[in-house]
């Protein structure tokens, strides 16, 4: 392919890549996409000399005025689109841009047209960047970068030589050069280098966001179960929804992913028989104890409570329609880029606003453990605030009370009663998502006494009510139960279907203890290969999001800190090694020279001096043999030496043949002597002499193929010499 054709192809590929970006961002209507695809195909066929192009071209307007009119028409269409149809600048601008792209593809003749096409493509890829954050963008971007490098390079090379004096400028014939494999790989190498530089610059560019004239984009994902009131049966409606709500990493847990992981959202204390609500949802604003770090409650303040080890979670939360922040129970510290965090009376975390984009935050949580005192106590005394809020039961719960008493007949302590109810629910009832209870007047009675199947809300509500009938304070908690571990990314993927409800039981000396009466379902199918692929894609998406979309000034600072720490540790290691090596060297010198120095000091000093002189001589010798240009010109020098050796071999063969070689005989004279005295060897000697002269005096390196050829000529000469003997 010649340069001119390649330049056109690369321009079309560039335009096509930018268009695909817009297409993937779903910003091009079908009619415009069809038109553009047709134009792209036609432009490509035209480039490769499709025979039917003349027929099609004859039907198209050729005059520039017609195309200019089309451009004006496109602009009028843009105004109409902006004011009447889409009424937004970005979509209308994209439609206009695609129309311009089509016109330019059809009129791609002059170098100016190419430059216009490059500019339009750049605007298009910019527009698609504004419309998406999906991971496909990186592949479009890489393709675009590759096409851009090819286009710019070929555009430059197909242009004439720049000359202030065109009269004397040599006429360039580069436009008709062919794309060689060397040029192909050179250009791709440049593209790879550009991509690497792009990554480096991307990560070191200081992140600033002024946010002038920005519009919020889209609404958050709709969730259920995290509003002020939760109707029984609401969670069941999302149990088939696979949409991702959040991703949770546990950076300090080496064996993460093996256990189910609870992400607490909100807690509810009031139940009216059909729905849960919170009697008092008063919130207080958390104080910031450091830059971006909020203290929810410190473990040190909870003296007397047995707490688990701190558990750190890094959470990437999708844009939701709720302001609730999720975390493992119970959050102690939250660190994030938030302007503030609120906490309600039941330890629920809230943002002051709902977010329109993904957010990332870290939480350190510690769970309560039942103390031995609470475990063994026959009777537990609760504070009035606890009794007032967490012992409420709806009217008509006598049947439930009877059931609770029956189940806990043999239990002596409150803890044993709690465990008995938990075991009863887990063993006597079946998990099923088919339980339609939203229309039932007494859904818990239906669950406990009639249907005996249900899902998490039914189990949790039943347990709370049963415990409360026995005078044990309890509350319902909604959140997510993460079970899907992504082994590629090392995080939990939490989906809408993981929405869950469970129970928190209060113990005076231990605090709120998490208990889940819902039995583990065995309906989750074993992971298939396709799901593995999906998890891999999901992991890539997360990394893309983390490394590119969410990369922020805070990340840059973290990278700088890690580098600094790394360099400090490296410096320390180097210092340690240097000191150790120095000590070892000193020890060696002392042990080897010490005895001599003691007995014969002159001998010792002489030895030392001799060593220094020998070392200096060695350095000088190495420098002499290894000049400064050795590294850069090593190969030519080596090949020069090789051809000289081959030439010497040739001289020896010729001398054995009886041809006299005086010290003053030049290579050309020798060749003449050989021609006169040994004509059979003339061609071999001539070739060797030419290679020798070029390699030895021509200041140009011989290729490895030429050296091989020289060796072959030497062999021919040896063969001829043997034959003549």
């Amino acid at each position, binding site marked *: 392919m010649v340069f001119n054709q390649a330049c056109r192809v690369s321009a079309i590929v560039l335009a096509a890549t930018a268009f695909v970006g817009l297409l993937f961002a779903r910003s091009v209507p079908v009619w415009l996409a069809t038109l553009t695809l047709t134009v792209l195909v036609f432009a490509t066929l035209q480039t490769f000399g499709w025979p039917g192009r003349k027929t099609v071209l004859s039907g198209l307007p050729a005059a520039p005025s017609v195309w200019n009119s089309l451009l004006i028409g496109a602009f009028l269409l843009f105004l109409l689109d902006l004011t009447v149809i889409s009424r937004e600048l970005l979509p209308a601008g994209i439609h206009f841009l695609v129309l311009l792209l089509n016109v330019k593809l059809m009129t791609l003749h002059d170098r100016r047209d190419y430059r216009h096409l490059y500019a339009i493509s750049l605007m298009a890829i910019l527009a698609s960047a504004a419309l998406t954050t999906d991971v496909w963008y990186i592949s479009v971007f890489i393709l675009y*970068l590759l096409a851009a490098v090819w286009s710019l390079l070929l555009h430059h090379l197909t242009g004439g030589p*720049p000359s202030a004096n065109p009269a*004397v*400028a*040599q006429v360039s014939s*580069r436009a008709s050069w062919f794309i060689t494999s060397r040029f192909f790989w050179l250009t791709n190498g440049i593209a790879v280098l550009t991509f690497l530089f792009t990554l480096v610059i991307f990560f070191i560019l200081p992140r600033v966001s002024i946010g002038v004239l*920005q519009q919020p984009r889209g609404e958050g994902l709709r969730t259920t179960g995290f509003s002020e009131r939760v109707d029984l049966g609401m969670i069941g409606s999302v149990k088939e929804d696979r949409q991702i709500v959040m991703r949770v990493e546990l950076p300090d847990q080496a064996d993460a992913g093996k256990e189910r992981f609870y992400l607490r959202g909100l807690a509810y204390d009031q139940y009216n028989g059909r729905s849960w609500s919170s009697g008092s949802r008063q919130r207080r604003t958390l104080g910031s104890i450091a830059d971006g770090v909020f203290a929810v409650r410190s473990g040190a303040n909870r003296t007397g409570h047995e707490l688990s080890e701190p558990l750190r979670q890094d959470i990437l939360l999708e844009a939701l329609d709720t302001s609730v922040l999720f975390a493992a129970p119970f959050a102690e510290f939250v660190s994030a880029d938030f302007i503030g965090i609120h906490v309600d009376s039941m330890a629920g975390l809230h943002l002051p606003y709902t977010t329109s984009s993904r957010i990332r935050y870290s939480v350190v949580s510690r769970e309560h453990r039942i103390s031995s005192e609470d475990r063994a106590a026959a009777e537990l005394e609760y504070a009035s605030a606890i009794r007032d809020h967490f012992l409420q039961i709806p009217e008509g719960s006598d049947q439930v009370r009877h059931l609770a008493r029956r189940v806990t007949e043999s239990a002596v302590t409150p803890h044993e009663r709690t465990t008995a109810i938990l075991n009863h629910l887990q063993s006597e009832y079946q998990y099923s998502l088919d339980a339609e209870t939203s229309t039932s007047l007494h859904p818990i009675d239906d669950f406990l006494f009639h249907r005996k199947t249900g899902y998490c809300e039914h189990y949790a509500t039943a347990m709370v009510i049963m415990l409360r009938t026995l005078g044990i304070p309890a509350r319902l908690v909604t959140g997510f139960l993460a079970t899907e571990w992504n082994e590629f990314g090392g995080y939990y993927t939490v989906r809408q279907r993981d929405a869950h409800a469970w129970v928190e039981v209060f113990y005076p000396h231990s605090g709120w203890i998490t208990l889940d009466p819902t039995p583990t379902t065995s309906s989750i199918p074993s992971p298939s290969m396709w799901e593995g692929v999906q998890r891999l894609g999901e992991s890539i998406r997360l990394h893309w999001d983390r490394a590119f979309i969410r990369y922020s000034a805070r990340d840059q600072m973290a990278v700088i800190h890690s580098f600094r720490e790394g360099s400090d540790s490296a410096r320390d290691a180097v210092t340690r090694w240097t000191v150790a090596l120095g000590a070892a060297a000193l020890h060696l010198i002392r042990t080897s020279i010490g005895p001599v120095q003691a007995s014969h000091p002159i001998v010792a000093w002489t030895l030392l001096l001799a060593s220094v002189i020998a070392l200096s001589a060695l350095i000088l010798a190495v420098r002499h043999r290894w000049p400064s240009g050795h590294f850069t010109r090593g190969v030519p020098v080596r090949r020069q030496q090789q051809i000289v050796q081959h030439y010497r071999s040739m001289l020896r063969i010729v001398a054995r043949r009886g041809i006299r070689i005086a010290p003053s005989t030049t290579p050309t004279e020798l060749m003449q002597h050989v021609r006169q005295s040994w004509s059979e060897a003339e061609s071999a000697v001539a070739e060797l002499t030419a290679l020798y002269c070029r390699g030895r005096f021509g200041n140009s390196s011989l290729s490895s193929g030429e050296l091989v050829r020289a060796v072959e000529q030497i062999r021919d000469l040896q063969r001829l010499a043997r034959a003549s003997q």
Partner: protein
Amino acid sequence: MTKAFGHIPTVSFQSRLRYLATRRSIRLTSEGVRFLLFTVGIGVAAINTGNNLFYLLLAMMLSLVVISGLLSEHCLRRLEFHRHLPDLIMANDPTTVTLSVTNHNRWLPSFSLRLSDVASGQHVDRGLFIDHLAAQRSVLLSYPIVASTRGKLYLDCVRAETLFPFGLFLKRALYQVPAEIPVSPPIRPVSLRFVDEIISEGQGLSLPRRGHGTQLYNLRLYQAGDDSRAIHWMTTARTSTLMVRETEAEDQRRITIALSTLAPDERNTLFEHSVTLVASLLWHLSQRSYPLRLIVHEADSGPGCGSDHLLAMLRLLALCERRAPDAAGSSLSNPVLTLGHDADRGYTVVVLPWSDPEAPAAVSGDRVLHASHIEGLTHGF
């Protein structure tokens, strides 16, 4: 021959400073300006929105700028230039200069190299362009140069520039390749009558010498090896001793031209015309195979003939400089005026662009060309 940045030949400190200051320069092309405007636009969008994909595109644009800088630098590095120049050129006469360019890069070729000469700080575009110079390869480029005045032509550097790879920036590099060429005065047509006059006058004053000719020069005793056809039989018969006849050389007419370099500033043009006249005379006489000698102030070419001798005399004329007379206007220090008697000098033409009107000196020449004569002879120059 000079390597890229290695050694700098013996040049003045100022030249060295200028070289260091200008050895690399970069200039935006019109495409580069547009590219940077787009880059700034994307940068503003990125800063405004905080959209990392905009930052990614900004990084791509910046990396293209960085790659442009690196590759253009690579194209201009490790080049070696060698100028092949004649020993002497004539003013106003086009001469071919050959420039050898070697790419010492180990792997990568150089692209789109445009070369120009730098003479006395001025860049002279010779229209030299190399599309592609493979690694470890050389190329020879030829171009004409024309010197407008006699003297020395200095060529300081070779400027190499490239738009590779994307045509966004024009990167320039200076390579020190100093060269110094003497420029002889131009050869002009001289009045043939005047030349003939000099020849005829010179012939009258020529000294008889033995050589190939027809006129008798001498009779002497025969010596072994003499041509028997040269025996003069009449004298041999008369003296009974073998005598041979020697003939007189017919072309033993030597001419010396002495040029006075003493002239005040206002006579500079006439002095230059005098130099041109002398060069033209020498050329015309040399064409007629005259043995010639040129004396310029204290420099003396010595007698000789042939093209090499002519070039040596022209080199003398190329490098001679006008000297202003001292305050007293004394011309005693002018060696041209005080030429002693010298049998080898032959017919002597003294060219005096200026003589002290207060104290006219006696000039010992066979023909003296004063300012008025010179003006008459160089009228058409």
